[in-house]
């Protein structure tokens, strides 16, 4: 089935691969390379259950994930032939740098001196008190302070590492797509530092809403190319640009979606979050976290903190998606909660799609969560029951944004506010002194104007 090059270069989902709840192994695996033979499987119409009870974890399957770019049935390389050899080269380079002492040393220095790592594991005393019940019992809440990174979010961990890879590969031009602008800013900054030319593709809808970010990207020396539409259109255009110039340019992906090796690469570079957390937890209380909570747009900050603990059976992994105006409103970004399996941007994963397999638009007050897909590895963690996924609405996120500001003097990114909002439901269920680590994936100064619009009469 030829894919229409004029639309997405990666195969979009033309038919829906409906995934019945319990029957993962029964979905026929399509060929992982080349074009997908479409097999329409219409499932029952029920939405996938949110509060899935934890099953016995199949650790074999879990630890074997990621080999060959597949996480169970998810992931893969659903791309045209033109990109196959490029992806192969990228994978080879990635595998090389993983073990190259010189690269690792240079990256470690950059992370320490440029990005400002390691980030603290901060005990949120007032937030902890807030969630104590009448007996004074409740979990101990820690924040992993990714908001303190250079450029204000976890995005830089990945951008700097990939920019270094681009330079190693001798690629002079870097292209990337951005929604809200955070990945664009991080990429532009990393390219400035490493003297790489940088072009950021941004959807016209987003550019209007994020004029400041557009300015910052230009200030950092990058070019901004406007694309009609939103993030998914910008992504496609960026990829098109890349394919036209495979020898000289490098497509810097911001998150754990896309064809192999992109999800694994980004996860690997973000996994420093979890590694530091493990060590810091050991130093602080001589143990591991009991629960790790993170917001989920496509999943990079979540995988960054989860990855380290996936093999630790006693650690609960909780992902929080955006329910926007509510799951029944049709205006949300809760891919894992309401989506069905399909192929999008080169990988098989859960995807928000209609009955005809057309990709739906996503909405959230946290603009960085506005993605109708999700990383394949997260789809796998959901199906195996290793991680749990919930959702919070725009309103709940806005309240959490204000609560953390008031109680701890930390203004979280609106995306991260979704993770904090879930604490309202989570904490009452946890025994006393349970150690909860929330990934504070970014700072929220960028969201202040928008919050102002929602709360114009904010009084002291």
């Amino acid at each position, binding site marked *: 089935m030829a894919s229409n090059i004029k639309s997405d270069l990666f195969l979009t989902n033309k038919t829906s691969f409906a995934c019945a709840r319990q029957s993962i192994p029964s979905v026929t695996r399509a060929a992982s390379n080349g074009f997908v033979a479409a097999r329409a499987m219409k499932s029952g119409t029920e939405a996938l259950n949110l509060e899935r009870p934890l099953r016995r974890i199949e650790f074999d399957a879990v630890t074997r994930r990621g080999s060959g770019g597949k996480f169970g049935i998810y992931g893969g390389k659903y791309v045209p032939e033109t990109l196959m050899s490029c992806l192969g080269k990228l994978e080879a380079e990635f595998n090389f740098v993983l073990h190259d002492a010189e690269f690792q040393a240079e990256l470690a220095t950059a992370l*320490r*001196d*440029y990005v*400002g790592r390691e*980030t*603290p*594991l*901060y*005990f949120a005393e*007032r937030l902890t008190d807030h969630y104590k019940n009448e007996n004074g019992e409740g979990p101990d809440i820690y924040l992993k*302070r990714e*908001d*303190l*990174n*250079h450029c*204000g979010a976890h995005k830089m961990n990945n951008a700097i590492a990939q920019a270094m890879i681009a330079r190693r590969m001798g690629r002079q031009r870097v292209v990337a797509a951005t929604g809200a602008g955070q990945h664009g800013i991080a990429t*532009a*900054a*990393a*390219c*400035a*530092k490493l*003297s790489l030319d940088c072009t950021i593709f941004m959807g016209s809808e987003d550019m209007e809403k994020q004029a*400041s970010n557009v*300015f*910052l990207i*230009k*200030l*950092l*020396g990058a070019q901004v190319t406007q694309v009609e539409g939103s993030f998914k259109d910008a992504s496609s255009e960026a990829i098109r640009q890349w394919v036209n110039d495979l020898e000289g340019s490098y497509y810097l992906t911001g998150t754990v979606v896309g064809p192999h090796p992109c999800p694994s690469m980004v996860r690997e570079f973000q996994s420093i979050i979890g590694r530091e957390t493990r060590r810091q937890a050991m130093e602080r209380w001589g143990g591991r976290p009991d629960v790790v909570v993170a917001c989920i747009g496509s999943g990079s900050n979540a995988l960054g903190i989860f990855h380290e603990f996936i093999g630790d059976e006693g650690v609960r992994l909780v992902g929080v998606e955006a329910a926007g105006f509510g799951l029944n409103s049709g205006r949300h970004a809760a891919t894992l909660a309401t989506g069905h399996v399909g192929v999008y941007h080169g990988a098989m994963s859960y995807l928000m799609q209609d009955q005809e397999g057309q990709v739906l638009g996503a909405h959230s007050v946290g603009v960085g969560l506005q993605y109708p897909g999700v990383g394949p590895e997260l789809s796998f963690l959901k199906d195996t029951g290793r991680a749990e996924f919930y959702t919070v609405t725009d309103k709940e996120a806005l309240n959490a944004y*204000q609560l953390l*500001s*008031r*109680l*701890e*003097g*930390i*203004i979280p990114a609106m995306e991260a506010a979704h993770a904090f909002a879930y604490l309202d439901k989570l904490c009452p269920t946890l025994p006393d002194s349970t150690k909860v680590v929330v990934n504070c994936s970014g700072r929220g*100064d*960028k969201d*202040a*104007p928008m*919050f*102002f619009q929602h709360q114009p009469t*904010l*009084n*002291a």
Partner: protein
Amino acid sequence: MAASIKAPPSSSSRIFPTLPRPQPLSPFKPARFTASPSPTRQLRSTISCTLVRDSAVRMDAPAQSRRPDSFGRFGSFGGKYVPETLMHALSQLESAFHALAGDDDFQKELDGILKDYVGRESPLYFAERLTEHYKRPNGEGPHIYLKREDLNHTGAHKINNAVAQALLAKRLGKNRIIAETGAGQHGVATATVCARFGLQCIIYMGAQDMERQALNVFRMRLLGAEVRPVHSGTATLKDATSEAIRDWVTNVETTHYILGSVAGPHPYPVMVREFHAVIGKETRRQAFEKWGGKPEVLVACVGGGSNAMGLFHEFVDDKEVRLIGVEAAGFGLDSGKHAATLTKGEVGVLHGAMSYLLQDEDGQIVEPHSISAGLDYPGVGPEHSFLKDIGRAEYYSCTDEEAMEAFKRLSRLEGIIPALETSHALAFLEKLCPTLPDGAKVVLNCSGRGDKDVQTAIKYLQV
């Protein structure tokens, strides 16, 4: 005794008797020192001390090492020019400060907060492309390092002091905090720590500033602080400061005033300096780890002077380390619209301390101007005045235009967007680097990040 003027009338020579402290003055008005010392002025003291603008005389070590002395003086600068009502609060503050300096528990608590909450230590970052940029045609040039205070929580060095003073206030049993703010950065830092420690927070801000900085006002309110507009005077920083002091006088039993810089009456200059001194301490250790030595030149922007003192203090006694402060020359030093206090100011008393300040012939405060709100202060910390006069530190200035060029330059070369305040220090590298020998180690205090300056930059740059 007739006073003699040692310099042309337009310069800053003034004669000051070493009288005991003048009559208690209202802290809201600067002391008036008449322009030309008339021969009819009868000075009772037989000792007169001439202070010229450029002191060629270096004072010896003993006086220099008492920074400050027990009266809170740095040479003749500093002191406590306040009404009686505040004297007790200041003494109490001073005792508490000295007690806590030796209190291990306090230090441990503070260190923990600086690490986990503020995100210290901040890196000493080798700016490779900036260093390349300043290499001369033969490949020689200094090595430029940035002390990354921009990575701190809230994005500037201000929080180091805010956090420590909030802890101090709690120790004193004071649950009500007040502060003044110009652009809002110190206000945001104060509101932040008050949220963290559960303290009531009131920020005084000039009504004009509130209009220009609506976003910062909103942030302070989001953090739970009350922002009170000040309409008196020119409705800017100096008026907000006066109002804050007025509030403090009225509520001194329950209230602690978190002053944002190394200005104000003793013990504030020394306290704020001590709380920022962590910057210099870390720098010394990091420099040693990185190149086995000390920095040769330290560069920092100077508004009130807190980030500069924070970096300099550790190295003041290391004679071979050059200390360079960069003020705001606004539209130019001759334009009358600038904030270059140490270059163009004269000695007077403002907000409780004797120091250089921008004043007119009648001793009225001149409204300063800088594109960067944080440098837009007509005074300067007394310790800087002292370091200038003894020649220990050098002070220069850069215009708005030079600062904006530097703002763009660092963004483009290193992917770090500096605060406009910091951009002044960066701008000075243009003049400094060509004069430095090959391999000279320069450490510049990157005192804040520039996200807050986006609107200003958009207007100015029309990008």
